[in-house]
C-alpha cells in the first residue's frame, strides 16, 4: 500500500528581548538557577503582569516578513493547568486574537521547493524548568526561563516529509535570526518545535489521526523523530491497528518516540481572557517605525557584498544565507583586506566544519580575531594555505590563536630563497636517478621533487618559491 505523510509544525521561537514578556527580569541564558526571577516570575500573591513592548515589535517584524496580517490590538488569555514549574497555575497566551495571522514561508529541500502557509503566530510566556534527576527524592524547579517571551508559529498541515520539515525549520531559523527576532540557538532551546504527524492512503482527502511529538530541538532530531513516527504509524495501520491521538516524546538515545504520561498534560485548559491585562494596542506610528527599522534581508546583503567586497554572486549568496555567517564575515572584513580569500575560507573549510558538526558559526570555537589572523598569515605568506588548514583544525578544537599555534609548532613558512635552495640541492643530490629521468623528458617527475622538498620542510616551504627555484635548478 502507498501512504502519504501530512505534517504541521508548531514552532516555538524565543524572542531575543533583554527582559521577560510580563516582567523586568533578565532573559539571559545560563544564569544560576532562580536568579533571573522577580516577584512576577515566581507568581507571588498580589503581583500583576506588565507589558514588554519589545516582544510585540519583534513578533510584528516576523509577521511583516512573512507577509501576514498583523493584529494591532493584542488580547491575552489564560491557559490554566497545574504544574510545578508553572508558577501562576496558568500561562498567559493568545487564543482568539493572535498578533500574527496568515502569511507564508518558502522552503527548499532536496525533494522540493514549495511555499508553506502559516496559520498564525501568537505571543506567550514560557514556563520554568523541572529537574527530576539531580536531587535524590526531590524535583528541583528553575524559574529562570519562566516568563520568557515566545512566539508560537503554527504552520498549515502542508509539509509532506521529514526532510521538508527540516527544510521548514531551517528556513524558519534563517528568517528569525535574520530579523533579529531570536538568537535561534537550538541547543539553548531558543528554537524548538512540536510536530503533528499523520499518514493517510495516497489520494485520500481526509486526514488521518495525528500524533504530536513534543519539544524537538535539533534539525537532526526533527528528521529522525518524524521518520520514526511515520514508520510506526504505517506499521500500526498495516497491522490493522489504529493510531491513537496522543502526545509523544522523542527519545534521542533510543531513537524512538513514546507516549507522554497522560498526567503531564491536561485536556481542558479553561481558556479565558486575562483580566489583569488590558488589550495592548500598537499604534500606526509604531508600525511605521518597525517598517523603517526593518533589518537587511539576505537578498539585499547578497547585492551589497558583491558591490562592497567584490565577491562573486555565488560566494555572496552562500555567505548571506546565514545571519551568523554574514555577521561573522562582516566583522572579519574589519581585520583583513583579502576578502576573496576570506570568502573562500568561509565557504570551504569553515562551512565544511560547521556542517560536519551541525552547528552555527556562533556556536563554534571560532572567533573573528582568530580567523582574520589566519587569513592575514596566509595572505602575507607567513604560512601556506596547506599549513593554514592544519592550523584551522586546531583552532576549531581549542579556540587557540593562529599565531600561538604557528609559534609553538614552528610552522612559519620558509620563504628565504637561500634556505630553500639548500634543501633543493640536497634533494637533487639524493635523487640523481630521478633527476636523470626528468632531464631525459619525464616531466611528470617535477611533482616528485616538490613533494620531497615539502617532506623535508614539513610543508613549511613556500610553494611558489620552491617551484621557481626547482625549475631553475633542473634546467642545468
Amino acid at each position, binding site marked *: 500500500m502507498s501512504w502519504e505523510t501530512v505534517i504541521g509544525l508548531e514552532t516555538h521561537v524565543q524572542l531575543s528581548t533583554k527582559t521577560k514578556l510580563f516582567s523586568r527580569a533578565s532573559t539571559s541564558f545560563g544564569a544560576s538557577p532562580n536568579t533571573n526571577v522577580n516577584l512576577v516570575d515566581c507568581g507571588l*500573591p498580589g503581583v500583576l503582569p*506588565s507589558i514588554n513592548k519589545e516582544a510585540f515589535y519583534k513578533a510584528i517584524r516576523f509577521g511583516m516578513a512573512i507577509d501576514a496580517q498583523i493584529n494591532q490590538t493584542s488580547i491575552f488569555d489564560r491557559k490554566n493547568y*497545574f*504544574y510545578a514549574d508553572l508558577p501562576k*497555575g496558568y500561562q498567559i497566551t493568545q487564543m482568539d486574537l493572535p498578533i500574527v495571522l496568515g502569511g507564508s514561508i518558502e522552503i527548499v529541500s532536496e525533494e522540493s521547493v514549495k511555499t508553506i502557509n502559516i496559520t498564525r503566530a501568537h505571543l506567550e510566556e514560557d514556563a520554568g524548568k523541572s529537574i527530576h534527576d539531580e536531587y535524590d527524592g526531590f524535583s528541583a524547579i528553575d524559574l529562570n526561563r519562566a516568563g520568557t517571551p515566545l512566539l508560537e508559529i503554527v504552520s498549515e498541515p502542508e509539509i509532506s516529509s521529514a526532510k521538508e520539515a527540516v527544510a521548514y525549520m531551517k528556513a524558519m531559523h534563517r528568517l528569525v535570526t535574520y530579523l533579529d527576532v531570536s538568537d535561534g540557538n537550538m541547543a539553548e532551546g531558543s528554537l524548538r518545535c512540536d510536530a503533528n504527524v499523520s499518514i493517510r492512503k495516497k489520494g485520500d482527502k481526509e486526514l488521518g489521526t495525528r500524533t504530536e511529538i513534543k519539544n524537538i530541538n535539533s534539525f537532526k532530531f526533527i528528521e529522525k523523530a518524524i521518520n520514526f513516527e511515520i514508520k510506526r504509524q504505517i506499521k500500526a495501520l498495516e497491522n490493522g491497528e489504529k493510531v491513537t491521538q496522543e502526545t509523544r516524546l522523542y527519545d534521542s538515545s533510543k531513537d524512538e518516540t513514546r507516549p507522554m504520561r497522560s498526567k503531564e498534560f491536561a485536556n481542558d485548559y*479553561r481558556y479565558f481572557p486575562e483580566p489583569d*491585562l488590558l488589550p495592548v494596542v500598537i499604534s500606526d506610528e509604531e508600525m511605521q517605525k518597525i517598517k523603517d527599522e526593518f533589518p537587511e534581508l539576505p537578498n539585499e546583503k547578497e547585492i551589497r557584498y558583491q558591490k562592497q567586497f567584490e565577491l562573486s554572486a555565488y560566494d555572496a549568496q552562500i555567505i548571506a544565507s546565514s545571519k551568523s555567517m554574514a555577521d561573522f564575515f562582516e566583522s572579519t572584513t574589519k581585520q583583513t583586506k583579502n576578502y576573496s580569500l576570506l570568502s573562500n575560507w568561509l565557504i570551504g573549510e569553515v562551512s565544511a566544519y560547521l556542517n560536519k558538526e551541525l552547528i552555527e558559526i556562533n556556536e563554534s570555537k571560532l572567533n573573528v580575531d582568530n580567523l582574520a589572523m589566519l587569513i592575514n598569515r596566509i595572505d602575507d605568506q607567513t604560512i601556506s594555505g596547506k599549513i593554514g588548514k592544519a592550523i584551522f583544525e586546531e583552532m576549531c578544537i581549542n579556540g587557540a590563536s593562529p599565531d600561538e599555534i604557528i609559534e609553538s609548532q614552528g610552522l612559519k613558512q620558509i620563504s628565504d630563497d637561500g634556505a630553500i635552495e639548500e634543501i633543493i640541492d640536497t634533494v637533487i643530490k639524493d635523487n640523481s636517478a630521478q633527476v636523470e629521468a626528468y632531464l631525459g623528458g619525464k616531466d611528470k617527475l617535477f611533482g616528485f621533487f616538490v613533494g620531497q622538498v615539502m617532506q623535508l620542510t614539513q610543508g613549511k616551504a613556500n610553494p611558489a618559491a620552491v617551484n621557481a627555484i626547482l625549475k631553475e635548478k633542473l634546467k642545468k
Partner: protein
Amino acid sequence: MSIQFKSITELRGMLDEKLISASELTQETLKLAKKYQELNCFVTMNEEVAIKKASTITSDDKTSSWLEGIPLAQKDLFCTEGLRTTCSSKILADFIPPYTATAVKKLEDAGSITIGKTNMDEFAMGSSNETSFFGNVHNPWQKGYVPGGSSGGSAAAVAAGIVPAATGTDTGGSIRQPAAHCGITGLKPTYGRVSRWGMIAFASSLDQAGPLARTAEDCAILLNSMSGYDIKDTTSLNSDVPNFLTNLNQPINGIKIGIIKEFYLGELDSEVQARFEESKKTYEKLGAQFVEVSLPNISASVPTYYSIAPAECSSNLSRFDGVRFGHRAENTNDLNDLFIKSRSEGFGDEVKRRILIGTYALSAGYYDAYYKKAQQVRRLIKNDFDNVFKSVDFLMTPTSPNTAFKFGSKGTQNPVELYLEDLFTISSNLAGLPAISIPHGQVNSLPVGLQLIGNFLKEDQLLNTAHLFQKNSEFHLAQPKLEDFS
C-alpha cells in the same frame, strides 16, 4: 486624653497642637486594639515596627501630610513587606511577603503608621467575615452579630474607634456592606483608580481597594494618597487625580438622584425603608431632586457576578499549590497528590465552593453558556448605567437589604441566601463605578447604610455629596458602647 472614636481630622489637630505625640498616639492605638481583642478585628499586629516608625515622627515636624503619624489598619489581603499576610486563610497562615502593595505603600509614604492587619473573609469571599480561618469578627454594636464582609475586621476596628480609618477591598460590596453594618463610611472607588499591585487577587476585573473611615472627609484624605496610575498595574487608570479633600463643601442644589425601579425597595423591611425615606428628605433639603430610573438588566447582577467572580478566582487561586509558598501538605506521593492535599487542607469551604463553581463556568462546553454569557450581560448592565447617568448625577439605594445578622444565621444551609446580601452593591463592581456607603441611622439598635453610586471617576462628587449629608446629620457620630468586649 482619649483617642478612641476620633477621626483623622481630629487626630491631625491633636498632633499639630501637640496635645499628643505620634508615639503616644500609636501606643494608645495599640492599647485599644489589645483592650478590644475579643472583637477579633486583627489577624496580625505590627507593634514593633509601628512604635519604631512613630518614634521617628517628632512633634517639631511641620508636616503638610494629613496622614503623618496617623495609625491605620490594613486589610490582610494587602501584601506588606516583612509583615505576615494571610488573606485569613490557612494556606497563607505563615506567608510573609517580600514586598508591599502600592496602596499601602502610598499611605505609609504619606506618613501613616500601619498598626496591624485586619481579619476578613477568607480570600475576601464572603459577606459576613465568617469564612475567616482566624475566626469570626464581632460587630462592635452587638456581640455575636456579624460585622459584614469581606472587610469585616477593618470595618469593626474603625467602628470600635480603635483606628480612625482602615483599608479594605471591594469585589462585590466588601467595603460598603461591612461599613453599613458597622455604622461607618466606606468608599469603593472607580475600577482602576487605586492600583491592585500587591492586593491578593480574588476576581481581577472586579477587585478594587478603598478606604473605610468615620467620615467621608477622612475617606477623601485616604483616597488622596491611595489613588493614581501605577506602572505595575496595567489596569490602573492613567487619569488625573483631583484633590478629593479640597473639593468638599461644593453646593449640590439642583443635582439629580436616581432611585432604581428594579430594586423594589417597597418590599424591604419597613424600618429600612423608613430610614431611606428620611435620607431622601435630607438630600431634598440640600436641593437634590429625586427621579425614578430604570436599569432593565440590573436584576441579573447577582447571577452575573457569581459566574464571573468565581471563574476569575478559580484561576487566580491556582498559584496556591504548595510548591513555592504557603501551606504544603506532608506525606504526599507525587506532584498531583501534593497539589490536591495542599489545596484541600489549605482552603476553607467557601473558597473551595467558588473555585469549583468557577472551574465549572470555564470548562469546555460550559464557557459559552456561563462565563461568556455573563460577560455579555455585564456589558448590558454597564450600558444601563451609562444610559441612566445621562440624566442623573447619582443613584441612591440602601447599602444592604437588612442589618447585621447573628453568627451562623445565614447561608449555612443555602449559600445563595448570603449571596443576596450583595444585591445592591454588586452592580457597581460589574460596571466599574465608584460607590460610597454612609451610615444613616439604626434599625433595632444596629446601623444601616445608605449607598450612593456615582459615574465613572466621579469620586470627588460622591465624597462631596456624602460629606454634605454628614454635615447635616449626626448618624456618623454614633458610637457603640462596647461593654461586652472589654
